[in-house]
């Protein structure tokens, strides 16, 4: 039996991960982490797959997936920019960094640009307080960011895609 009717191999990997937890229902959050890692975001079909494999009601899976901010139910952009809004970053001007990023990208935090190139997010504190304000670009923490620096990074991401179009 294939893991999923679509034949998508990622379902097979996910299924192996579920087996590692003996399909225990209390592993739901770990399974969702893996699912998001594999697929980038949690679409309904995927949530339903998880629900069936863990023998949980879909409402439980959806309730959990929407409770935790880390999970996203919509596709993310090719690049992600996470501005930390923890206290240390805040008192050192992260709000200005975020405002600059929002203005440059033309989206609000939590949104993805229409061309799916960039998702702009905020974090409650990534624990990089001594190097505040911190921004995470595609998973890499960058220290002591200024509006100019965030703009430069966004511009850098934009360039290669300009080149291809």
């Amino acid at each position, binding site marked *: 039996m294939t893991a999923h009717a679509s034949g998508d191999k990622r379902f097979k990997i996910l299924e192996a991960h579920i087996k590692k937890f003996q399909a225990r229902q209390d592993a739901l959050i770990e399974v969702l982490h893996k699912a998001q890692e594999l697929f980038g975001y949690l679409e309904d079909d995927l949530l339903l797959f998880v629900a069936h494999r863990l023998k949980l009601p879909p409402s439980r899976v959806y*309730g959990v997936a929407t409770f935790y901010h880390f999970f996203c139910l919509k596709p993310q952009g090719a690049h992600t920019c996470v501005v930390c809004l923890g206290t240390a970053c805040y008192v050192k001007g992260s709000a200005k960094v975020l405002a600059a990023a929002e203005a440059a990208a033309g989206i609000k935090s939590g949104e993805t640009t229409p061309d799916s190139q960039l998702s702009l997010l905020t974090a409650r504190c990534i624990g990089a307080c001594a190097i505040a304000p911190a921004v995470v670009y595609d998973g890499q923490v960058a220290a002591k960011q200024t509006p100019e620096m965030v703009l430069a990074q966004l511009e850098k991401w934009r360039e290669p895609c300009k080149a291809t179009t």
Partner: protein
Amino acid sequence: MAAKTLKIDGRQVSAAEDTTVLDAAAEAGIRIPTLCHLEGVYDAGACRLCLVEVAGTAKLLPACTTLVAEGMEVVTQSDRLRRYRRMTLELLLAERNHVCAVCVANGHCELQSLASEHGIDHVRYDYRFPRWGVDATHPRFGLDHNRCILCTRCVRVCWHIEGAGTKNVAGRGAKSFIIDDLNQPWGDSESCTSCGKCVLACPTGALFDRGSTVGEMERDRTKLEFIVNAREKKQWIVSE
């Protein structure tokens, strides 16, 4: 089972040891206001209306989840408690869109009655006017999120009496809302058995029988108790 003797509002009360303060008070004819409590399902301790003062405890305790203890002294009515209850109700009235005048539950709504009981003649907080929808896809029932107070009674009856697990809370904080299955239209739910227990459980007009108009949504809550007694205690008690 050992009995405990305690004082509630100055009255000597005795109750079996695993009785909640709420039940012990009710037994003694003392009514403590509640919203999320529902006979037959486990308590969430979420609405905070049944908070009582217990001598020797600095914190206020929810009567619905606090067990009686020997020598306990409970106060269920005080100026402070009344003020807190009033404010809590005001917060609820301001949170979503409770337009009693055009609500199916007008006159049969626990939120409306409690507000009335607590002398709320206006709400001091900013009405939030959030935008919530109505799910009218189920052939027999409707869900109006505008009137929902997130007491989770519907969720608890769906899981623990019916066992279907159709309903749950999604999101969090003020953005929490009741869902069916994967947040899909109720009418499309595969797990819903259309048993209607959630509608019976709802304290406001959020869940209703389709076709009811203003003020028509009365519920017979004794049915839920009847089912729970039948299922758990194998006793079929028909209320007179």
